[in-house]
């Protein structure tokens, strides 16, 4: 696919052209041009930092709507584990699951259940793995996209498994197809997402050729409908027990949940894209070889901190933890033997390697790139170093880069412009002082006087 689709987009009407988002973006993917923010498509990793940062709520995530359900004969909702942390304390897991039937889904399959499969597979994989450590989680697409452009060296250490979302879609559709006798293609699987990067992941998946997910619906879009149907058991008699995931899968909703589920000897869990960056810097330098597994999440707090969620991340986390404590089913749906069989068959292994994307390079030719770099350093030195962002680039260095790439000018810098105006003003003043000889005051010299 040539056009790289992005979920994170701009609501031009709301954007006031301030510079808050450009300064927060971890990959410097936003510029302000003609009074509006512009997202540099090839750089954006859909982490959602700008959605959180924008004071005017002008950054939005494009997700699918419930209308897309009409395209399929049979629809399955795939709620993310973190979704269950979005409700008041008296709501239980079963109530939430039933609500999906209430709003038009035929079935609901917890992504937490698929997470348990991935967790088990990664655990087994780590037991046999002899290569470079640590192994990174493959669950957060924003982090993988970050690694593609900034830490390509570490990509071969990404756990070679599909994401829980992908696994959930595959199992849910296979099961439904068998049970209902409906062709696989006529079944729609919809991920209920706290995360814009998952939308991008569905359209341009990194670890598989084609995603089995048919739509990604933002939690923010579906929340009100779900609230209205909480505990709605009018459909299907209300007797089925829908909750199947255990606390191990549910806990993937917040940071540390995944690594606990994977249960390697030494694990490390980090949330927040800027924290992830400093950790990856360290690992790329060759540190932390003694750590087996690193859970890396773009959002602070993990998926409960997703930009499309309703609740504050801390509230979401405590609600989710509380739910797990009260309603986490004891009996696992998949037996140890099932999980072992899945792992041995390599059923949910990644089929595509995550490829680097060298978009930071100044030029394909090293010599020419070096020339540009020379110029880049020169320009940077001449810029004021305020990193004010008024030029529309996130900092002075980024402006210098934009100048080199031919998409900005030195005079875009207000300080530089001011200097130029000053020089010009002085020149004008100097010029104004010069009087033609025919008009100059020569009385002092005792020549032919002239009044003025």
């Amino acid at each position, binding site marked *: 696919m040539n056009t790289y689709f992005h979920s994170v987009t701009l609501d031009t009407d709301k954007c006031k052209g301030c510079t808050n988002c450009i300064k927060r973006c971890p990959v410097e993917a936003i510029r302000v041009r003609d009074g509006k923010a512009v997202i540099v498509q090839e750089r954006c990793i859909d982490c959602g930092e700008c959605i959180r940062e924008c004071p005017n709520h002008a950054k939005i995530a494009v997700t699918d709507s419930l209308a897309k359900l009409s395209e399929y004969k049979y629809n399955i909702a795939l709620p993310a584990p973190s979704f269950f942390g979005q409700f008041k304390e008296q709501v239980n897991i079963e109530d939430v699951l039933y609500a999906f039937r209430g709003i038009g889904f035929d079935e609901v399959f917890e992504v937490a259940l698929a997470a348990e499969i991935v967790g088990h597979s990664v655990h087994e994989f780590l037991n046999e793995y002899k290569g470079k450590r640590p192994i990174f989680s493959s669950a957060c697409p924003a982090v993988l996209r970050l690694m593609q452009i*900034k830490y390509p060296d570490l990509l071969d250490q990404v756990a070679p498994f599909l994401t829980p979302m992908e696994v959930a879609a595959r199992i849910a559709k296979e099961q439904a197809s068998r049970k209902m006798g409906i062709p696989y293609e006529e079944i729609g699987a919809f991920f209920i997402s706290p995360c814009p990067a998952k939308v991008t992941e569905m359209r341009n998946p990194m670890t598989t050729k084609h995603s089995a997910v048919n739509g990604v619906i933002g939690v923010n879009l579906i929340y009100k409908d779900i609230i209205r149907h909480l505990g709605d058991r009018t459909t299907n008699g209300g007797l089925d027990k829908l909750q199947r995931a255990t606390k191990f899968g549910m806990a993937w909703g917040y940071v540390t949940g995944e690594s606990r589920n994977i249960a390697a000897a030494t694990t490390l869990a980090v949330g927040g894209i800027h924290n992830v960056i400093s950790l990856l810097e360290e690992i*790329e*330098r*060759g540190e932390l070889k003694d750590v087996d597994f690193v859970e890396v999440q773009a959002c602070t707090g993990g998926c409960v901190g997703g930009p499309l969620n309703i609740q504050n991340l801390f509230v979401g986390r405590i609600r989710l933890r509380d739910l797990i404590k009260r309603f986490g089913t004891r009996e696992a749906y998949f037996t140890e033997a099932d999980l072992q069989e899945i792992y041995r068959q390599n059923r949910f292994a990644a089929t595509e390697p995550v490829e680097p994307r060298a978009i930071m*390079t*100044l030029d394909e030719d*090293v010599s020419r790139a*070096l020339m540009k*770099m020379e110029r880049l350093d020169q320009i940077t030195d001449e810029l004021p170093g305020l990193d004010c962002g008024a030029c529309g680039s996130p900092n002075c260095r980024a402006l210098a880069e934009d100048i080199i790439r031919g998409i900005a000018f030195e005079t875009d810098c207000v300080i530089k412009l001011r200097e130029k105006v000053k020089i010009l003003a002085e020149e004008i003043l100097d010029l104004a002082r010069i009087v033609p000889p025919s008009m100059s005051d020569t009385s002092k010299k005792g020549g032919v006087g002239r009044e003025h």
Partner: protein
Amino acid sequence: MVDSLTYTPQITLEFKIGEKDFFVAGECASRVKKTLQQLGLKQNVIKRIAIIIYEAAMNVAIHATSGMVTVHVEPDAITIRTEDVGAGIEDIDLAMKEGYSTATYEIREMGFGAGMGLSNIKQCSDDLKIESKVGVGTTLNAKVYFQDQTRQADG
């Protein structure tokens, strides 16, 4: 005189390192790495260079009272030079041995000074020169060629 026909582009990056300034070593390595990525160098070359810079800067931070890391990039090679004022190295051959270390207990406690620095640098460099005077300081010059395919990077 600079002849415009033989002009080769080059850049120089400099970092000051103070005594026990462990933090700055990582920063040097990261900054240089970002620069080299922008230049489009191969990942394994960048990695070797980053290791050299990190280890060399760490050596300055651990053993010297002050020092300087200078990174000089030309179209075909990079030179990493550290100059420091400090204890110096008594026996360079011995210092190059894996596991040999004169780092203090405190520094080892912090997880540094395992005696792998110089041997790591040697493994990653195409050319390495170390000059040292006890009680005065040490100068290290490491060179990595971008096109050299004859050697393999370590892990």
